[in-house]
């Protein structure tokens, strides 16, 4: 099946510094990430002006700390981690209650897929966006890193500074939470489909 492969991963291959060449400059590495970092910042802050400040501060901090970045390691994960740390320490970030109750997903009752659960395919883009916005930040960010940034579990683990096993369980719960929110929003139409 085609989704078994991750088609987007190669897009970011050039961001990993090649050791045979002189070390890339901060500018060369960081500027191509501007669009995605801003999009991510916007999802975290839910505010245009705040997202701009967050991105600007991320670049300034990252440039200042660039000497501590180890060439050959994941630059993208490093940048996202800086952005996220600044956000979590901001006023908006401190207000967001992050719940870290990681439990084994295997222990949770498995939800049997019914034809009704496929309604997410019919949900409009706006509905999914609203559901995403309603998600707690720790669910929202991990879904964005996985689906929009197409990061591997390892990259997500680096970015969020959590173990790879936690990435898997949190993703599982984030998807269930999103599915529930979408279903809730489409509640009235559910039986009509």
């Amino acid at each position: 099946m085609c989704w078994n492969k991750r088609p987007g991963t190669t897009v970011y291959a050039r961001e990993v510094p090649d050791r045979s060449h002189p070390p890339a400059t901060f500018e060369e590495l960081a500027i191509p990430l501007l669009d995605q970092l801003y999009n991510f910042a916007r999802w975290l802050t839910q505010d245009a002006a705040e997202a701009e400040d967050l991105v600007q501060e991320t670049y300034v901090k990252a440039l200042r700390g660039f000497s501590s970045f180890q060439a050959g390691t994941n630059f993208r994960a490093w940048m996202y981690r800086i952005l996220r740390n600044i956000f979590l320490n901001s006023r908006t970030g401190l207000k967001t209650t992050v719940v870290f109750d990681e439990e084994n997903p295997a222990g949770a009752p498995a939800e049997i897929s019914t034809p009704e659960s496929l309604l997410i395919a019919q949900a409009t883009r706006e509905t999914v966006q609203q559901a995403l916005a309603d998600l707690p930040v720790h669910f929202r960010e991990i879904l964005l890193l996985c689906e929009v940034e197409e990061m591997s579990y390892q990259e997500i683990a680096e970015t969020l500074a959590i173990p790879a096993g936690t990435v898997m369980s949190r993703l599982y719960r984030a998807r269930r939470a999103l599915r529930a929110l979408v279903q809730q929003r489409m509640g009235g139409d559910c039986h009509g489909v």
Partner: protein
Amino acid sequence: MACEAWRPKLDAYVDGELAAAEAGALSVHMRNCAACASAVLELVQMKRSVALAGRRSVPSAQLRARVMASVATKPRARSAWAWRSLLAPALLLAIVTAIVTFYIARENARLQRVYSELTDLHVAALAGSSPVDVVSSDRHTVKPWFQGKLPFTFNLPELQGSDFTLLGGRLTYLEQAPGAHLIYQVRKHEISVFIFQDREAEAATLPSGAAHALSFNEETWTQDGLRYFVVGDTNTDDIRALSDLLRNAK
């Protein structure tokens, strides 16, 4: 494997994080399991929906310009490396310069010390009741007087036709070495000429040249294994003229 065992792995499967063998086994399982196949399809559709919905905002041109400016004004990492490669030669140059400066300063300090000592000898001799031990304007009288008193000999110039007159000579010592101290006069100014053996010692390695200290003019050079110093309160032209006469003495 039963459906229940596969359920927790479906997310990893759609994320491409399942090991190849497991992914293959799940594919086989799904051919006969509608529930799992439908769950996977739902997850894939969800991934697509989120990917689509998640790409929502693009940065304004203003922010892009701001970020570019804040990044571009800072020194580039590559120039930092170039600077480091220049560090070793720059450091070496600085060390060499420091050593050379130190030696030049030390030479100058030593020359100043010798000059000030000679100036003292010059002034002390003139201040004394008998400035010279051999009083004669005749070089043929003065020169033989030093025989047996100095371990070297020297030539004195013929002064006929010049403004200089020889007043006489005396024995002197500089840095524990004996030497001849001759006193000349030009227009009521006294000029001292010191002649020492050009040893390996300090004074011998002094650079030649003229100097000026405390209104005294001085000139020094080496010739035929002897070190000459000319010290006087007259102008530099007189000092140079007398030095030239001594240099050409036969």
